[in-house]
């Protein structure tokens, strides 16, 4: 399910619209994931505060959105663009790839929540396909 030219256009345009809110989107996405899928908290046991909107959650949400921005900027070669991040996830972070789906589901929920009129089914499918590629790129170096 690779990205068509249209998908890339739609994703890039939508990202341009929402990029200004990236920090809040990141924080909200992560907060929801930790609440709705409590098993994901196991990766953050070293944080002093896992509650929604806490400082560590906000900071990490920012970092994750930075990764998404990087993927958008490299949308013609997501695997190449995310190579370093993939190495990091493979050797150091070792997040079970099943969790990428969980994070991205919450990202979609936040997008629908904040941009109900812009997050149409056409935008939804393009973004969902894009995120699937990001997940694949992130786990590329796992084995």
């Amino acid at each position: 399910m690779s990205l068509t030219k249209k998908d890339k256009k739609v994703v890039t345009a939508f990202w341009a619209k929402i990029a200004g809110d990236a920090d809040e989107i990141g924080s909200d996405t992560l907060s929801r994931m930790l609440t709705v899928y409590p098993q994901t908290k196991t990766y953050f046991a070293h944080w002093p505060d896992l509650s929604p909107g806490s400082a560590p959650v906000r900071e990490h949400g920012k970092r994750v959105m930075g990764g998404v921005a990087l993927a958008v900027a490299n949308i013609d070669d997501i695997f190449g663009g995310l190579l370093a991040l993939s190495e990091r996830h493979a050797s150091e972070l070792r997040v079970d790839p099943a969790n990428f789906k969980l994070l991205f589901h919450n990202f979609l929920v936040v997008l629908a929540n904040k941009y109900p009129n812009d997050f149409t089914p056409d935008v939804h499918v393009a973004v969902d396909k894009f995120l699937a590629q990001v997940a694949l790129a992130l786990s590329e170096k796992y084995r």
Partner: protein
Amino acid sequence: MVQWTEFERNTIQDIFAKMDYEVVGPKALARCLVVYPWTQRYFAKFGNLYNAAAIMGNPLVAKHGVTVMNGLDKAVKNMDDIKGIYAELSVLHSEKLHVDPDNFRLLADCLSVVLAAQMGTAFTADVQAAFQKFLAVAVSSLCRQYH
């Protein structure tokens, strides 16, 4: 048996009491058919599903969206025995409709997205968790009679 907290019970009753099935059902099913096009395999008799606009304007899709919500309504009214209430529906989906149960999960995800769009700030993380738990129970109950 599923354990529901008071917050979860109240949240589910509240969400569905305020929900317009005629709006949410069609939106969720249409979104599912657009975002996961392979789900269209079950709706070959629905006519024009050629693109997003066609799907979203298709009256048969809309009607079926409402049917799905009425099915969920049964679970809302019987939260302590969703498994029992859905036994017949489960057999129907397995034996007659031959629906791959993964599709229930896809539709549930679309329902969460549509509700997130509808509810705005009221769709907090805790409300989302309760809603998704309810949908997960409904989906699990629908899968129960498959063999």
